[in-house]
């Protein structure tokens, strides 16, 4: 560009978008027909195709509306297939098709990108995996938030009833650090062949770090992670789901000690949980259907209750830099669908 654009025109367009109620609080890129056409040109899908529907509010999202929102989020047109795949992946989640976006929990999508597309589009695959700082990671996640707000019409304080929400709700898009992971890519756990460009997604209630650079013993690392997963604050149902976004160092330590992903999942399923006394102390020992409640009954005080029922409830991803042994426990809202969405053919 030889000449800088007129800032006052840009400011007026940004303010126009605010005035329409379209913004998540940050400035939007005003979407013009040629820009949105460039997005639509990256997919063979029809602009009219409905890619998600919320029956209870009578709203849906088409490829066309997704393109407008992705453009407004600051995506480049070539990111659009990733946005579509991320949205398709989210629509596999029962919570995202139901009342999840309206929930008092205010859950955040966690998007995981695998395969060559990570580098083709310039996703951050290394340090600072949870952001910020990288346009593809930041804007793909933001596009989902704008779709929920604008296409589904779920706005804060109205149909969206998050009590506190969570930090970075529309900003979690990890590109897996496949190069430094000792394990198959996450998309393989979602049924895609190794080497495929694919996107997975689920909903989170929060993230919590486990800083363990104190030991070379894999079991000690796993015990430290299990302690974080097992805290009572997050337990509201009989079962829970908590994934781990391993840093490369922890993943490599575990792999060197012979742990494949299923071994880590089995270990965590076996060791994560609380005694009946712990649960009773927190008012969460009783069960009415799948829901916990405070029960004065002390008879199960000595029983250890496991909380992770299956490997799908313990998704494992590898992301971040190899510069410190810091991993993240990610608390899943509902249950991961267990499927990764391959990227569509881009003409």
């Amino acid at each position, binding site marked *: 560009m030889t000449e800088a654009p007129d800032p006052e025109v840009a400011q007026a367009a940004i303010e126009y978008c605010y005035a329409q109620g379209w913004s998540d609080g940050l400035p939007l890129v005003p979407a*013009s*027909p040629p820009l949105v056409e460039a997005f639509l040109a990256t997919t063979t899908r029809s602009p009219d195709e409905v890619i998600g529907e919320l029956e*209870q509010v009578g709203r849906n999202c088409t490829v066309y509306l997704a393109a407008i929102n992705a453009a407004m989020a600051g995506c480049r047109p070539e990111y659009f297939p990733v946005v579509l795949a991320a949205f398709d992946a989210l629509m596999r989640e029962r919570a995202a098709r*139901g*009342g999840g976006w*309206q929930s008092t929990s205010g859950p955040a999508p966690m998007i995981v990108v695998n395969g060559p597309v990570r580098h083709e589009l310039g996703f951050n695959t290394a340090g600072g995996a949870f952001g910020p700082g990288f346009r593809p990671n930041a804007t793909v996640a933001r596009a989902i938030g704008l779709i929920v707000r*604008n296409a589904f019409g779920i706005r804060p304080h*109205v*149909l969206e009833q998050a009590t506190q929400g969570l930090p970075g709700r529309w900003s979690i898009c990890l590109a897996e650090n496949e190069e430094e992971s000792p394990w198959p890519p996450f998309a393989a756990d979602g049924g895609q062949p190794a080497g495929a460009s694919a996107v997975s997604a689920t909903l989170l209630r929060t993230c919590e770090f486990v800083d363990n650079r104190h030991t070379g013993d894999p079991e000690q690392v796993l015990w430290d992670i299990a302690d974080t997963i097992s805290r009572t604050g997050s337990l509201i149902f009989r079962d829970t789901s908590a994934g781990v976004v391993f840093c490369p160092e922890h993943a490599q330590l575990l792999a060197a000690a012979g742990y494949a992903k299923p071994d880590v999942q089995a270990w965590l399923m076996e060791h994560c949980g609380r005694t009946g006394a712990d649960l009773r102390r927190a008012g969460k020992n009783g069960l009415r259907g799948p829901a916990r409640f405070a029960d004065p009954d002390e008879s199960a005080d000595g029983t250890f209750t496991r909380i992770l029922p299956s490997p799908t409830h313990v998704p494992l991803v590898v992301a971040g830099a190899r510069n410190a042994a810091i991993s993240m426990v990610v608390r899943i809202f509902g249950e991961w669908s267990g499927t990764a969405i391959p990227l569509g053919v881009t003409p």
Partner: protein
Amino acid sequence: MPYPILDPTGTTGSTAAQRPAPPRARRPASLRGATVGLLVNTKQNAAPFLDEVGRLLEERYGAAGVLARTKVNFAAPAPEDLVKEMTAGCDVLVTGIGDCGSCSASAVADGITFEAAGLPAAAICSDAFTVTADAMAELRGAPGYRYATTPHPVAILTADQVRERAARVLDDVVALLTA
């Protein structure tokens, strides 16, 4: 001629307010001899709350009996066969408790659906969720739709407190259900 800035909502020219208002069911003069439908949304304390409302309607207002059903997916609209069954088998309906982001809106949406099917309905929501309940009513073409409220929170109430709450909301429920 500059380009337009595109609308990301897809609602231009088709706002909910332009939808025809759904009909409201005809109210009976009293609940004497009425069968009261209780649609329980599985939220904590919803079942004992509605059970007590049903019991009090029998005891104090002469209702003949109750037909209790559970809506498993509290965020979604009541399934069509459930709407048919309760409309055929009941004279009035009480639904709730709207005590979360999605289920409060959903309780109101169900109330409006039952009204349109000909069954007078009273939805009960926690008073922390009136904004989302009102927004849903507007979406369904029924702005200003009336429902009963009970103070938040409901989930942590003891059995005795639930009964007391049911008694407190009873007059509002009766007023919503009768002419």
